[in-house]
């Protein structure tokens, strides 16, 4: 059951990503990206990371992609004209991406034990477990990240402010 769902949503995720690249209209691409994000959320859920799945839907499919579509709608962006990309991308693009993917897959498979107990099936990491780790072992990175985001917000405000 878990495996069937995993395969289904993994295929949906990849199909969404391909559709994102092939569509000419920006709003269709944005919607494909939403499909990718949501299927990723289901994959997280299947691996037992329930809080991460919910956060993925709320933050990525909900907030960030709404902003994307909002901007596309506001600018009323039309269809993209196909351009002749660089020669280098045509020649090295596919092998490069394949090599990178292979490398990542090799590292993940050879260092399996670093993932701990996470696996497909009945394993569930509750929100309590997650916050325990986040506020004890990983407290410093967590707080530093939040400060980083705060700085980004302040930067956006400073850039958007009108000069008097």
């Amino acid at each position, binding site marked *: 059951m878990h495996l069937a769902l995993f395969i289904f949503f993994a295929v949906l995720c990849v199909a969404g990503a391909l559709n994102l690249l092939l569509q000419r209209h920006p709003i269709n691409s944005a919607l494909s990206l939403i499909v990718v994000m949501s299927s990723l959320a289901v994959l997280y859920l299947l691996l037992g990371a329930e*809080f991460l799945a*919910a*956060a993925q839907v709320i933050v990525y*499919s909900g907030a960030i992609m*709404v902003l994307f579509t909002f901007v596309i*709608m506001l600018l009323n962006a039309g269809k993209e004209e196909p351009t002749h990309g660089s020669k280098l991308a045509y020649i090295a693009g596919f092998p490069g991406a394949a090599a990178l993917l292979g490398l990542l897959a090799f590292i993940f498979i050879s260092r399996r034990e670093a993932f701990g107990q996470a696996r497909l099936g009945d394993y569930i990491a*509750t929100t309590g477990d997650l916050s325990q780790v986040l506020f004890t072992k990983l407290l410093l990175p967590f707080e530093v990240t939040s400060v980083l985001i705060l700085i980004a917000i302040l930067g956006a405000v400073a850039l958007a402010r009108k000069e008097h």
Partner: protein
Amino acid sequence: MDTSLIPFLLFNLAKVIVVVVLFLMCVAYTVLLERKLVGRIQNRWGPSRVGPFGLLQPLVDGAKLFLKEDLTPEAVYRPLYILAPMIALGCSLLSISVIPFGADIRWHGMQFFQISDNNIGLLILLGITSVGVYGIALSGWSSNNKYSLLGALRASAQVISYELALGLSLVGIVIRSGSLRLRDIVGVQAPHGLLSWNFFGGFQFVAFFIYLMAAYAETNRSPFDLPEAESELTAGYHTEYSSMKFAMFFMAEYGNMITVGCVATLLFFGGWTSPFGSYFHFGTGPIATAFFSLFWFVAKVFGFLFLYVWVRGTLPRFRYDQLMGFGWKFLVPVAVANIVVTSFCIGLWMPVQ
């Protein structure tokens, strides 16, 4: 495993069908309730011709919407034009799936009054609300109409802004109950009735009013109904929709109203528990428990629906800059202050487990 899978699936399917049918009936009668009440507020009768007291009006309205011609304007972007009302109604129906309607009564381990009981019910509700905005945004954009687009842009901006206040207002409750599961959140409010509800005993009344205002804005209801302000934008994002497609937006809006009422009941007013708590028992045994828990839940949700209509009949619409200022400069800071105060109080006076 296989022997128990089939009854499990059948039971859940039956549950889903019953809940969806009842939910849509409630939606139809909420529309009637609104028309009657707004009529009374404006000193007129409201619908009174079809059936006794106009009670059959929803049926006639439904038949009318079904039989109307389904126009699709030439200039629309068809796939999204058709998809948009489905997203809106789908999200509205989905959110009811995590809501517990009554006490935890089981038959062979299967729950009666909740479709899906999971650890992250509250987060699922927030996630569905945040996805629901696509229905409105895409309908406005794909209609290829200036009024629709303006309505959709207003709706997206409004929902994104108020989602923040809405999410923050719920943190105090999560801190108090220590769980994101809706049944646990209600369980914390059960023992002393009124005194242990989050609104009174949990001192979350500030959070409640923030939640209420943000939720009104999220459902695009008056006084935050700028996306469909008829005096400025004809009908806003659903200007180009007719027949059942329009009805789907309509049902989605009223469905969201009911969901907000349910969530407010669960989070702040003790859900299906009675206001007398353990001091006064109405009867024991599974049937009495089921009946009274459903009774209290429905009564509380009805109160919220009444409040919705009352507010609509009373308050004028916000101006756009007032709307944004109110959301960002008032609700969000107050919500943050509420989190700080609540966590201080709980940290100081509650024992650490």
